[in-house]
């Protein structure tokens, strides 16, 4: 039997062509997948659902597989601490002396702070609950820096919650499933974090680029940073609570200011997820959707119009226009409320809150810096 009689013997050229066609088709599919991926802008997409399923499956597997790794890591740490015990002992003694001095200063400042808070009637920040989780997968590639933790909606984790280690901020939750949450690290190329320099109060944006030291962008002011300055979250935008430690400023090889993250010096396997709701989550969207404008009450008799049917909080006196001068030549007061017709007789009685002339709004609570207090800021001492 001749070799040429076999029908498979002539498949070389067609197979190469079909392989090329398959390659082109797969490239088209990959491009379509990339273009259709809208995670982060539109939640509830097919991609987000697939990611949740994958996280749910990978988490228990990673949890089991990482156990020997933790044992081995612990063994190396034990060996390292054994060999470095003498030097570590000297270092700890020096740190202890410094810590005792710092404790005395902190006690005095705490007492002074408490007195000032009492004088200013400042509302103290509520403690923030946390969820402790174990990292079971750690993506360290330059194109994506994300971790997978074994706490999900079953423990009350939601998208947007900040994540910290025992030293500082790690990132925030960008995806959550029943038993897992995906954490976007500060180092990720898509991460943008509002931060401040503790020494100068200068604001900046911490921009991740996939490397170990994210960049400080949008710095303002003359010489706002020095090497070694503490970098904290500023709380601007409401995504992170203010005052969380991030790291220390360092000058990068490219001449730009970067941050050596505090979380890099902490063990990588345990994290704490702060159950912090940002401002957009706290806002009552139904109340915002109600477009009734509050009426402005002045001393002029012509402004004694019926208030809006929905009780609204009174505007502060500083926001009101100046009172009209009395007399017949007085101009009508400026009102930002649309003219509303008189209510019919069958209208139910108005609630008592519709008498803003007699009720004086309480003064807004202010921080010592004169800023209004945030609804749910972070309190470093707050423990679950």
């Amino acid at each position: 039997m001749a070799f040429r009689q076999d029908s498979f013997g002539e498949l070389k050229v067609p197979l190469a062509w079909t392989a090329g066609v398959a390659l082109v088709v797969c490239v088209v599919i990959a491009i379509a997948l990339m273009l259709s991926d809208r995670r982060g802008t539109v939640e509830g997409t097919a991609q987000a659902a697939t990611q949740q399923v994958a996280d749910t499956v990978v988490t228990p597997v990673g949890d089991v597989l990482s156990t020997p790794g933790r044992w081995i890591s612990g063994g190396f740490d034990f060996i390292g601490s054994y060999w470095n015990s003498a030097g570590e002992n000297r270092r700890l003694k020096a740190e202890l002396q410094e810590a005792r001095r710092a404790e005395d200063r902190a006690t005095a400042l705490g007492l002074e702070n408490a007195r000032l808070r009492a004088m200013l009637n400042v509302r103290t920040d509520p403690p923030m609950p946390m969820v402790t989780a174990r990292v079971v997968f750690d993506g360290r590639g330059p194109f994506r820096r994300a971790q997978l933790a074994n706490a999900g909606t079953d423990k009350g984790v939601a998208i947007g919650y900040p994540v910290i280690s025992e030293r500082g901020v790690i990132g925030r939750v960008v995806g959550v499933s029943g038993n897992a949450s995906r954490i976007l690290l500060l180092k990720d190329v898509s991460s943008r974090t509002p931060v401040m320099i503790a020494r100068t109060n200068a604001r900046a944006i911490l921009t991740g680029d996939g490397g170990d030291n994210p960049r400080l962008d949008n710095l303002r002011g003359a010489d706002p940073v020095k090497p070694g300055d503490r970098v904290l979250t500023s709380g601007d935008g409401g995504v992170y609570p203010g005052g969380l430690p991030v790291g220390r400023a360092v000058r990068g090889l490219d001449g730009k200011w970067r941050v050596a993250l505090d979380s890099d010096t902490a063990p990588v396997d345990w994290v704490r997820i702060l159950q912090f709701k940002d401002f957009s989550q706290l806002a009552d969207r139904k109340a915002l959707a109600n477009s009734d404008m509050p009426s402005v009450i002045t001393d002029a008799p012509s402004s004694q119009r019926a208030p809006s049917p929905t009780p609204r909080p009174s505007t502060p006196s500083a926001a009101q226009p100046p009172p009209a001068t009395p007399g017949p030549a007085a101009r009508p007061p400026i009102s930002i409320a649309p003219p509303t017709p008189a209510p019919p007789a069958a209208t139910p009685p108005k609630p008592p809150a519709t008498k803003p002339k007699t009720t004086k709004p309480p003064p807004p609570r202010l921080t010592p810096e004169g800023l209004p207090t945030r609804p749910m800021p972070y309190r470093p001492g707050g423990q679950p």
Partner: protein
Amino acid sequence: MSFQAARPLDPWRWMGAPALICLGATLLLGLPFRVFGLQLPEPVFPMICAFSWAVIRPSVLSPIALLAIGLVLDLLWGSPFGMWGMSMLVGYGLTLAMRAMMTGQSRMMMWAWYAGVCAVTLAAGYLFTMLAFHHPPNLVGVVWQLLATSLLYPFAHRLIDRFDDADVRFR
């Protein structure tokens, strides 16, 4: 006359098993593990498949399998869908186009070819990431990943050695 030489390869032996091994290795190296403060590198294990499959023979199944592997990588690492599949398909297509030039080269020369293909693949990933997030990734990190991935060539060489002559139609 025997027709053993013209028999097609078993897809499971030269594609399925290596793909699963590469994905398992990716999962293992993704575990949080730090020794004396140092973390493990994160090489792109499936580049072994992308290079050696194209060198061994053209196949219809290879790009499909690479696309599927890329999707798994996207799910594991959280990158945009299709990014790793597209990047590896670029490397696979390049190797397929250069296949005739690689035939008969020495091991060191093939290693250099492999490193070049890895560089093109990661450059594609760099470009796609930049397009997706409007921000360039850190080049140092990309170079480290390229070095770690290039060190995996002995595994690709073993795969090529084992299946290169298995189908005489594609010598």
